């Protein structure tokens, strides 16, 4: 009979295994740091190079500029002009408009789907819904972009009579399709992981299934749901191909969601290909890349902070 016992000689293997795994984790950490460092390095001339600064300094990127004498100052993105104009404000407006519409579309859909799937759906239904929604995440974004460009845009224009076929609503819904599975997956997982004891307690107090899910499960799973929404927002800000194809790419500042937009990510994708290495335009595009990186980093970080706070509040030490 074999004795069940851990032999002492496997210790060095465990040691190596542990080091190997932590090295893997470190590589990911290092990669993120290096990516940021190299992108930022290309953007540094904005702060240091006086030749570049003449064309594109930080205040030219942020503040209103008077480009021609006798004409009012304005925000404008026209990098290939006789007088290059690099205002980031129109791009910021475009990015936020698209992400806002995407969240307006994806958050209710994702969270609603998660509630249904985890609380009300039968076992068989749930096993159908979950993989299908998650499969939405596997569709390449260029396919979603093509769909938004060819099908969705025509449908929306015919239905709502938009002046511009390609606009922030069209791009936002296209983006939303990519965001739904993120929100759904994270929200669904957090709801199904709410402990059985909480549900049982509520049921024992006489709550019906609706009351159980709305007053007990939903609040307890709120950290996970908000994390899903925050992660989805990060994706909506950074996603490139869908907005490049479906947004019209016109750098307009307006509050009208039926206007075309130009986002940060699409601008980099469209313009980096033929820009002169080391020029003002090149530097500005890398500055945009740096900003985009910082945006998503801060969004995810703040999401995490909120998440851990909420977790403490609702689940005690159960994290």
């Amino acid at each position, binding site marked *: 009979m074999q004795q069940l016992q851990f032999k002492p000689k496997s210790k060095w293997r465990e040691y190596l295994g542990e080091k190997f795994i932590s090295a893997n984790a470190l590589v990911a950490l290092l990669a993120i740091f290096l990516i940021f460092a190299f992108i930022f390095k290309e953007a540094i001339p904005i702060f240091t190079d006086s030749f570049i600064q003449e064309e594109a300094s930080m205040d030219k990127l942020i503040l209103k500029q008077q480009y021609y004498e006798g004409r009012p100052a304005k925000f404008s993105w026209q990098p290939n002009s006789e007088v290059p104009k690099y205002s980031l404000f129109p791009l910021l407006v475009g990015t936020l408009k698209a992400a806002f519409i995407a969240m307006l579309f994806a958050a209710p859909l994702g969270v609603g789907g998660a509630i249904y799937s985890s609380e009300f759906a039968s076992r068989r239904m749930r096993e159908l819904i979950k993989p299908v929604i998650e499969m939405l995440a596997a569709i390449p974004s260029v396919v979603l972009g093509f769909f938004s460009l060819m099908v969705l845009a025509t449908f929306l224009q015919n239905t709502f009579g938009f002046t511009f*076929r390609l606009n922030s609503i069209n791009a936002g819904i296209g983006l939303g399709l990519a965001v739904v599975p993120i929100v759904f997956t994270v929200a669904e997982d957090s709801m199904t992981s709410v402990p059985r004891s909480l549900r049982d307690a509520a049921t024992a107090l006489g709550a019906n299934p609706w009351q159980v899910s709305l007053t007990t499960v939903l609040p307890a799973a709120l950290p996970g749901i908000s994390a899903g929404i925050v992660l989805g927002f990060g994706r909506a800000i950074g996603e490139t191909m869908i907005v490049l194809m479906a947004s019209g790419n*016109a750098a307009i500042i307006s509050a009208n969601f039926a206007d075309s937009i130009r986002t940060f990510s699409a601008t980099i994708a469209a313009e980096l290909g033929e820009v002169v290495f080391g020029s003002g335009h090149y530097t500005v595009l890398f500055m945009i890349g740096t900003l985009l990186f910082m945006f998503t980093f801060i969004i995810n970080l703040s999401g995490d902070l909120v998440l851990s706070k909420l977790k403490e509040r609702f689940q005690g030490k159960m994290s």
Partner: protein
Amino acid sequence: MIKKLMFLGLALATVSMIYANSRITIKGSDTLIRLGQRWAEEYMKQNPGVVIQVSGGGSGTGIAALLNGGTDICEASRDMKEKEYKLAEKKGITPHRVSVALDGIALYLNEKNPVRELSFAQLKGIYTGAITNWKEVGGQDARIIVYGRENNSGTYAFFKKKVLNKEDYYVYTQALPGTAAVVNAVSKDVNGIGYGGIAWAKNVKFVAVRITDADPAVLPSAETVSNGTYPISRDLYWFFNGTPTGELKKLLNWALSEEGQKVAVDMDYVPLPKERAIAQTMQ
């Protein structure tokens, strides 16, 4: 002994054959690359022993390669800039420019749009935002939806220089990736207008263009671009370092010949008028 001599002779013949092989590199404009590749294929088929490598990268890339001695032929959809000519002089390179084909930029409208012709002034107004309603240019009372290309496109730059007098595009101009996307957008948008190559048009109609109100409006076609009556057209160039000799000269003369120009037509480019092709042929 005889065997050895024969072997030596064979080896020598092989070596000399390899050396007789001419290698030609062509680099530059993405507008011209399809034609350049087709020309290279045909020429290599007719002249075994010649190897031609064609690559793109844009006119600027091609010109830079010519100045650095990195290519035999530079394809360009624009002339060299003064700065580039000066740089060439400094590097001891004498650029020799030959027009090898023509390219016309057409303006597309939706087939339901009643507007038939536009002048340069009207086009400039539409693309800079001074004119925003079709009724200002003889159409229906509807907002003009302006489509264009991304700002890294050669067509974007050419249109801006030729029609907008280098002024900025209207901020509401929707930039689309590629001419096919522009054509598709205009074909679906009753109030749309877009620009791009003649060969790309499908389910859209062309606008006849006039320079001033006194000039006749001309529809774009291979013929009107070729004879120079259609105003928004450009030459597509080959640049050499000095006047081409040997195999390069042979290749150039073949491209300019009736046979070479027919290849251009088959590829939907606009051929040079015969007199211009003959005038540029090297003796």
